[in-house]
């Protein structure tokens, strides 16, 4: 085979004469209000400050709705409602609690199409993903945890599982509905009550979920949803009557949270940033590995904490992998999130787009070789082409820092020991990927990798039964599976 790039003029995808006609998902069936208040104690209440902020569609930059901004007073009201509801809810027979959670799961399934469209409108993610990943997985988390509600004694044999109390939950903008499900489902199944704050750029599906909570007939105050930005979040974290903080978001904010709860009895789980290694060995199934690289870094525009943003390729197959990867990138379609053929949707916000662009500038300035997909971008909205940098090292800034966008940094390696060292050579430790045809190599690697999740011959696969969480600056505590339940229980 040899190493030379024959450059035989292979034309793929977007260069083809066969362009896909637009295939937009209809928005006529969705039901959105112009203005959303806070969901406290089973009712929609106006924020005490009277302030509202805009939520926009990042693909068009048009405003979708007014969203209430909750201040300390509102958060206090929500926590009080949750405290009041905690007693009766935690004492409800577990199988009755389960029924409510099952109901939410079924309602999500029934309204899956509406939720998918709203998720794509508000957050910018491709409808293919919100339809096939976010919404079905959200329903699956409610189903899974509802199933455990009346079996907790068997889940933790020899222990006496008891609900903790009121959980304050703060979720990010990358998987708005799914993260709400990750947080709410286990909390409710274990008998806790909740004050949840969605991210300020993507509050809509959480607010729609509040409607489902009403429809499912949950007792008032069990689920409270307050919207707002960082200050609302800090009101939750600092509230005296919160027993547990569950946060998913940036490592920076995670550190602030940990500092604020020092000296209190608040329990916490933090799921923070990542800079995962995706490792391709020479004996890997190369074409499938290339697809795994794509799924690893360009899934959800790269707005994924466990994204495979550091690619390690064993040197003998480097040229082959890069060539195939570039050809594959050229077939990716960036555009209208609601188009069923879109592979990569809109960047979530103007601020995030700027962050990504700044990192791309840094990468170029550092002398790395830059490549981007040949697709065109819409003229309006926040979009970024899928990009990659080759010729980088562990010392490059774009290799060290989480970018949270469609930017891949590619390095080569020569031996197993070397790649394990380099993969672990990061303050983060959320996830990793390994591609090889050899089972023993997989086990050797996974046992030495300091990462919460290691995928073998696949990437970015999620299941409610599988615990998820990080090492080091990627946070602590696990979500999903039995581990996820234990985070919402006192086990004596």
């Amino acid at each position, binding site marked *: 085979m040899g190493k030379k790039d*024959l450059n*035989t003029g*292979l034309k793929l995808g977007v260069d083809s004469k*066969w362009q896909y*006609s637009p295939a937009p998902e209809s928005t006529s069936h969705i039901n959105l209000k112009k203005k959303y208040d806070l969901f406290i104690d089973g009712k929609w209440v106006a924020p005490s400050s009277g302030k509202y902020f805009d939520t926009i569609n990042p693909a068009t930059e048009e405003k979708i709705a007014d969203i209430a901004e909750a201040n300390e007073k509102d958060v206090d009201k929500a926590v009080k409602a949750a405290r009041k509801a905690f007693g009766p809810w935690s004492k409800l027979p577990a199988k009755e609690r389960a029924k409510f959670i099952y109901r939410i799961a079924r309602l999500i399934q029934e309204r899956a199409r509406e939720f998918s469209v709203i998720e794509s409108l508000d957050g910018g993610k491709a409808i*293919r993903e919100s339809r096939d990943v976010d919404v079905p997985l959200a329903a699956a988390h409610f189903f899974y945890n509802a199933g455990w509600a009346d079996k907790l004694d068997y889940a933790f044999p020899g222990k006496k599982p008891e609900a903790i109390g009121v959980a304050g939950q703060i979720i990010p903008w990358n998987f708005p509905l799914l993260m709400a499900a990750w947080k709410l489902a286990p909390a409710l199944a274990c008998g806790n009550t909740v004050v949840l704050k969605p991210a300020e750029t993507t509050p809509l599906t959480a607010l729609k979920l509040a409607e489902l909570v009403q429809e499912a007939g949950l007792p008032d105050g069990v689920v409270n949803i307050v919207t707002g930005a960082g200050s609302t979040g800090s009101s939750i974290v600092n509230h005296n009557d919160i027993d547990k903080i569950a946060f998913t978001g940036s490592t920076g904010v995670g550190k602030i949270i940990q500092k604020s709860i020092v000296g209190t009895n608040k329990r916490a789980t933090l799921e923070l940033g990542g800079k995962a290694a995706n490792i391709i060995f020479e004996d890997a199934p190369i*074409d*499938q590995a290339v697809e795994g690289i794509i799924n690893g870094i360009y899934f959800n525009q790269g707005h994924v904490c466990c994204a495979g943003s550091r690619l390690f390729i064993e040197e003998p197959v480097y040229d082959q992998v890069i060539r195939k990867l570039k050809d594959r990138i050229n077939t990716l379609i960036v555009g209208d999130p609601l188009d*069923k053929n879109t592979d990569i949707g809109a960047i979530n916000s103007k601020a995030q787009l700027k962050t990504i662009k700044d990192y791309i500038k840094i990468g170029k300035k550092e002398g790395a070789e830059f490549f981007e997909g040949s697709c065109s971008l819409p003229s309006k909205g926040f979009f970024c082409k899928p990009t990659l940098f080759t010729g980088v090292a562990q010392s490059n800034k774009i290799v060290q820092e989480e970018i949270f966008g469609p930017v891949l940094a590619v390095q080569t390696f020569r031996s197993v020991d070397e790649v394990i060292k380099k993969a672990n050579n990061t303050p983060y430790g959320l996830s990793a990927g390994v591609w090889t045809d050899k089972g023993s190599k997989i086990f050797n690697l996974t046992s030495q990798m300091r990462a919460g999740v290691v995928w073998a*011959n696949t990437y970015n696969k999620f299941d409610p039964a599988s615990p998820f969480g990080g090492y080091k600056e990627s946070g602590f505590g696990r979500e999903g599976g039995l581990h996820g339940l234990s985070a919402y229980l006192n086990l004596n």
Partner: protein
Amino acid sequence: MSKIKTLPDFTKSPTIDQTSIIEKASRFQKRSIKKETKIFGLKLALNMIDLTTLEGKDTPSKVKQMCYKAQHMHDSYPDLPTAAAVCVYPSMVSIAKKEVKGSGVKVASVSTAFPAGQAPLSVKIDDTKFAVDSGADEIDMVISRGKFLNGDYNYVYDEIATIKEACGKARLKVILETGELGTFDKVRRASDIAIHAGADFIKTSTGKISPAATMPVTLVMLEAIKDHFYKTGKMVGMKPAGGISNAKLALHYLVMVNEVLGADWMNNTWFRFGASSLANDLLMQLEKQRTGIYQSSDYFSID
């Protein structure tokens, strides 16, 4: 330049991850093909069909009827393309040749003791030469699956190379009969052998074994073609055969070819469908696009 050709070690063919390739193949089916894209795709697929009759009961009349259909898919729809080829047994080649003369429709003949391939090499060579002498433009041979599964890759390679030589100017399609090979790894290995031995096309199935063509199996073969192209710059054609009976699935195959190999393969020189019932479903969908309504199957001729 040395003329000595060194063969790759076929046991070192790339491996395939089963779960991932099935998942990847299904991703092509998520593409939504509408409007102009759909009409273009439907017509293209029609033009890629090898209309086929391979039965013990084939008669000259049956073959003539099929040849007429290949040239007149649905005359009430203006400017439709013809089929790419008609595919018959060697004994029917001369009849088919006469029937499609001047239409641009090619005559393909199966050979090498199709479908089982359980005959001596000399018989297979004669079978092929007979078809070529009768006027076949293309030869669809079967590999010796028994030898392949036995690990006798050199035999399989030599046999394909020998038949290629017997083909002369006729283009050679090599049928792997993937339904008998068992794993994706073996499909890939057989594809590499066929390509190196001189196949102009690689083809999934005889249509006599189930499973016949599937999207994941076809994807494995397209990747083998792509790797060969990367290494040598030479194009090899692809023909999934059997099991593709509706237009939607055919369009998804086209999406796959388009996104794996690109525009150069999007014509019947490099891509074919081995299918007969597919034609009428494509026609029905074309009429639906043109008139907005589905017509009964009685409005589409069966030949």
